[in-house]
């Protein structure tokens, strides 16, 4: 039986100015993106940010309204899904309920007319450590097992790019952690480009080499997990990845490698390399774990009041109110001399200049704040 003719494209995946409209609604807005060959790439964003649409356009399940998609030098923008050497792990696995696990994994190989079906299927099943379940039906497997079969079914075809659409969304927390490590191991073993779509920032940070944070059809920022967390470039990224304290302020001077910013009649210092705007109106940011309940640092706020305190094992989380009535989150490590603070106590907070960053002040200070843990 002659197999389906499939594109042999290889190389980096490049999206060039891709847009997708549904009527007047813009799901993906002029998005350009390069995913290096062999990397583990995550598209992270809240639901409705366009990340799944982007994935479906790469898979060929949606056609871009504008723009082109290339793998290496081959344009695959309008190539039919069944001719692309791209495979998808679907959100709810979409295994074929009428076929055995073996036949599920063999499906793609048979369509392409591959000869060594048996050997390839066994190899793929062993990769996900489920070789002993080959004769079962999907309904007889647990969620975690189905998930791994979905990965095996896609990977057995040795695609150039593997797309994962919220693949761990239906699993419980413990299993999800386990599968994160598992997927990372598989990716290293097979060396295929993985594009992982998720709304779970922790999942993206654990697994991906590079993360693109998406919001309203655009990429807000792209980089390694550390880059995004330590040096966010927008208020959305700062709030969506972990927690962040942002304070509106004004740049007074830029000299000697640092900027001096005044906010609410306090003066703070920021390294110039961490100021991502030319505007004088800025949002001053600092992560909660960088704050200390002390008053000796370069940047400090005195006369704060403890509003709430919760002990969570490795750290204690304080919610303190600044003199200008803004609430600030502080994480204190439980390593040395516990501050035995109670609600209502007066405290000062301080942090180092190099932990501060400054963003363009024209943004919504709460962008992305309550989106991280929905769904």
């Amino acid at each position, binding site marked *: 039986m002659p*197999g*389906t003719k*499939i594109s042999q494209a290889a190389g980096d995946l490049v999206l060039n100015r891709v847009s997708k409209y549904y009527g007047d609604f813009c799901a993906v807005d002029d998005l350009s993106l390069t995913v290096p060959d062999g990397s583990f790439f995550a598209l992270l964003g809240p639901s409705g940010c366009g990340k799944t649409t982007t994935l479906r356009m790469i*898979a*060929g*399940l949606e056609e871009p309204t504008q723009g082109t998609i290339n793998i290496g030098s081959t344009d695959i923008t309008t190539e*039919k*899904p*069944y*001719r692309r050497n*791209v*495979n*998808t792990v*679907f*959100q*709810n696995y*979409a*295994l*074929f*309920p*009428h076929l055995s696990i073996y036949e599920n994994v063999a*499906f*793609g190989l048979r*369509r*392409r007319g591959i000869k060594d079906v048996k050997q390839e299927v066994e190899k793929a099943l062993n990769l996900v450590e489920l070789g002993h379940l080959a004769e079962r*039906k999907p309904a007889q497997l647990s969620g975690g097992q189905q998930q791994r079969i979905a990965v095996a*079914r*896609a990977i057995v*075809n040795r695609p150039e790019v593997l797309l994962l659409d919220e693949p761990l969304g239906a699993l419980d927390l413990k299993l999800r952690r386990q599968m994160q490590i598992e997927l990372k191991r598989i990716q290293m073993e097979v060396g295929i480009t993985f594009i992982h779509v998720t709304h779970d920032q922790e999942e993206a940070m654990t697994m991906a080499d590079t993360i693109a944070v998406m919001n309203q059809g655009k990429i807000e920022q792209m980089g390694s997990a550390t880059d995004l967390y330590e040096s966010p470039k927008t208020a959305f990224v700062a709030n969506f990845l972990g927690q962040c304290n942002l304070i509106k302020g004004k740049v007074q001077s830029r000299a000697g490698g640092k900027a001096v910013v005044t906010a609410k009649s306090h003066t703070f210092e920021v390294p110039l390399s961490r100021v991502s705007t030319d505007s004088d109106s800025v949002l001053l940011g600092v992560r909660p774990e960088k704050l200390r309940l002390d008053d000796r640092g370069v940047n400090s706020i005195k006369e704060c009041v403890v509003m709430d305190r919760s002990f969570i094992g490795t750290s204690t989380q304080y919610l303190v109110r600044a003199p200008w009535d803004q609430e600030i989150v502080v994480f204190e490590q439980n390593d040395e001399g516990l501050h035995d603070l109670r609600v209502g106590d007066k405290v000062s907070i301080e942090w180092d200049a190099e932990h501060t960053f400054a963003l363009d002040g024209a943004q919504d200070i709460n962008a992305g704040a309550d989106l991280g843990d929905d769904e």
Partner: protein
Amino acid sequence: MAFLHAATSSHSNSKNALRSRGLTPYLLLAPGMLWLITFFIIPIFSLASTSTMVRPDGAPLGQYVQKFRFQNYIDAFQANQAQYLRSFIYAGIATLLALAIAYPLAYMIAFKSGRYRNILLVMVVAPFFTSFLLRTIAWTQILGDDGPVVSFLKTLPFVTDSLRLTATPFAVVSGLTYNFLPFMTLPLYASLERIDPRTLEAAGDLYANAFTTFRKVTVPLSMPGVVAGTLLTFIPAAGDYVNASILGNPNTKMIGNVIESRFFAVVDYPTAAALSFTLMATILILVTLYIRRSGTDELV
């Protein structure tokens, strides 16, 4: 089992509560059981006993005595072989036609109808708002000599002017197909609608083109609907007599017509009863073989 479990797990309850809980399932079953006994079990035994009766010499019409004459079955079958065969052939053709018409229809409603889905489903069921008899009689007009179908066909070059459609096998099979179409469409729709569209996308993702996806995924997943639909069409169609008597001629008689005339015109109850039992048994055997072969029990 559930009853046993309930009884053993409620040691501490008072005896009274235990007894009432134990009775509840039987009380709930009672109306249905009573109905079945009155209208199914008793009649079927009376039919069975009638089937081996004989009419004594000189007795008036409709009077029979029990003689356990099993030869009745052989006599009845031998006299009506042609009608038996015809029943199963007509029902078989009607079932295949209904499947061919209903599958694309159900597929369209399940996957492509969007917000018109409910309207289309109502349209499938709408014929039930009119009597079965009236609808069948309407077909005599549709297929009549001056009706739209014949008039249209006569405009075609290779059709002779003497063309008639009423009182033909074609009319009977058309009537059967039409009347049982909803029984085919609804189960097909139900099983197609249950297919997760993502499994179809997954097939496309795994190098299957539209036709292969249909053949390898859609069809196997809709098999429960195909089996249910064909049974719901074939079984009543094989025993039907209305279509043959309204749309047919003496040479298109089905076994249902024979049974009907034996009961009500000839008043030959034993033969009618024997024919009924033979029909039931044949259908039962065919259905069992069919379900065995299609192996749909594995699907769920």
